[in-house]
């Protein structure tokens, strides 16, 4: 596997004034680029004075190469096609690069597929000039893809990223608010339900689930360490991590799927329940696992059972509070079945944790 690297070209100009209509900008990375407002041209190299304001012409058709512009960094601007064609500077056009370009086309094609998971798909062509269009734009997308991983993505990967960004469109306060709600569910039920319905996010579910997996495995191991008489005999049990991970991630995926299947089998339209909202609520309802697992470190059987029960009740109350009204409206016949499904899932998680992760009851 190789990870190709594309250098930004050397700036040949010395420090001197710019020709008329040229302006210098700096990217966030500190790289400098130059823009000609009259000819509407953008390039990495400092323009020499020989290029006048009339330079709509290029050095030669065949020496054109697409240069990534800062507008490539922005996904929105990409859609409007602000990519520019820019002439190779004189120094690079010399030296017979053109002969090797055909080789580099095929070479760059292969590694690029391996390089970046986000990269892929045919790059859109900028305004066509000359026969090196396809090569130039492929170079550009590869270059942009390696320099700015997500921002240079084109095609289907770009739209997937944009879709994902919609799902993660929350701010820190939103997430904190939702977490607090999941822990103490008996406050502000109405706005909470609205919030989850209109703006479900996947950040919370995923990271709450991951944190829960880690905490469950960690506290399980730690509790076993505390219970042992002799510390030296402790051998950590890594299988707890796999058990916790498969349980939590599995249920996070399986429960909404099962609900969807149930909807399908009962003959109703699958779209009537907002599944993003369901997944979001289910994910956030895993939050009580985290404080509960910390409390379970205390080696008292009664306290552990109490913590598990309180956690279970909190999760279920949260789910009921946020989903019940919506379900009653969207799929009234299935409301109790879906809620019952969530109950079972949570019971499985909490009971498995209490009984399997701790040796002593």
């Amino acid at each position, binding site marked *: 596997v190789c990870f190709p690297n594309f250098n930004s070209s050397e700036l040949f100009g010395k420090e001197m004034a710019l020709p008329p209509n040229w302006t210098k900008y700096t990217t966030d990375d500190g790289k400098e680029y130059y823009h000609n407002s009259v000819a509407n041209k953008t390039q990495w190299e400092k323009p020499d004075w020989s290029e006048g304001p009339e330079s709509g012409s290029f050095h030669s058709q065949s020496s054109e190469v697409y240069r990534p512009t800062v507008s490539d960094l922005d996904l929105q601007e990409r859609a409007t096609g602000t990519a520019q064609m820019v002439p190779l500077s004189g120094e*690079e056009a010399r030296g017979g*690069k053109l002969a090797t370009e055909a080789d580099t086309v095929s070479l760059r094609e292969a590694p690029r597929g391996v390089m970046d998971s986000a990269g892929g798909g045919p790059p859109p062509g900028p305004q066509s000039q000359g026969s090196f269009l396809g090569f130039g734009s492929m170079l550009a997308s590869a270059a942009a893809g390696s*320099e*700015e991983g997500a921002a240079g993505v084109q095609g289907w990967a770009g739209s997937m990223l944009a879709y994902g960004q919609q799902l993660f469109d929350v*701010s820190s306060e939103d997430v904190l608010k939702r977490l607090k709600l999941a822990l103490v569910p008996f406050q502000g039920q109405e706005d909470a339900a609205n919030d989850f319905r209109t703006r479900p996010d996947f*950040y919370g579910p995923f990271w709450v689930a991951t944190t829960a997996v880690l905490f469950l495995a960690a506290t399980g191991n730690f509790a076993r360490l505390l219970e042992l008489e002799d510390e030296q005999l402790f051998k950590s049990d890594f299988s707890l991590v796999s058990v916790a991970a498969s349980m939590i991630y599995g249920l996070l995926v399986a429960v909404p799927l099962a609900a969807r299947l149930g909807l399908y089998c009962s003959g109703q339209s699958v779209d009537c329940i907002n599944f993003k909202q369901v997944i979001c609520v289910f994910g956030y309802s895993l939050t009580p696992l985290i404080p509960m697992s910390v409390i379970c470190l205390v080696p008292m059987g009664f306290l552990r059972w109490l913590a598990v029960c309180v956690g279970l009740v909190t999760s279920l109350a949260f789910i009921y509070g946020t989903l019940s009204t919506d379900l009653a409206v969207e799929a009234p016949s299935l409301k109790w079945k879906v809620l019952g499904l969530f109950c079972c899932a949570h019971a499985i998680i909490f009971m498995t944790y209490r009984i399997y992760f701790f040796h002593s009851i």
Partner: protein
Amino acid sequence: MAYEPTYQSPQFHGGDGMVTPSGSIESQQGRCTLDEPVTETIMRDLRSIGMKLKYVMLPRAREDKGQGLREWDLWGPLVLCLALGIMLSMHAEQASLAFGLVFIIVWVGSGIVTINALLLKGKISFFQSVCVLGYCIFPLVIAAFCSLMLNVIWLKVIFVTIGFTWATGASVNFMSELLPEDRKALGVYPVWLFYVAIAWLILIS
């Protein structure tokens, strides 16, 4: 300055301007690296890795937010991950599970943390972020090595805590700088969680 194309086999390399895939259009020094002895090629990479490791350990990394790791490469994280996996699985009962877990947590973990930052509309280059997260494991690797030598639980905890604080310093600054204002905490928390997971792995071995 005339440019000669450099025909060199592709390497695990980032942006230092010296290594490019065969048939590249330009190279900054314009020298043909095909003629140099193999040791020179390997030493160049090793020196680059060593430089970056030293950079991670210095306090300067915490201030300028990881700029020295701008030229990313993935050899360093791979070496660190292997070292950590070997150290942690040496005395473990389920050695293969431990090693596999270390590998998965380091690579999949840094990938997921980076994708999370990308999804939160951060302006991050994927491989540079994986590189920074990987290199910042170095203090934890040192802590793991020290705790392997001594078996006293107190010292282990202290070493791992120091290593963890050091590791999170540079990488958290790096990550938070590239995220939008209202989401810095959202992007930084997974980084913290990532190093907590590795620190926990070290502690329980």
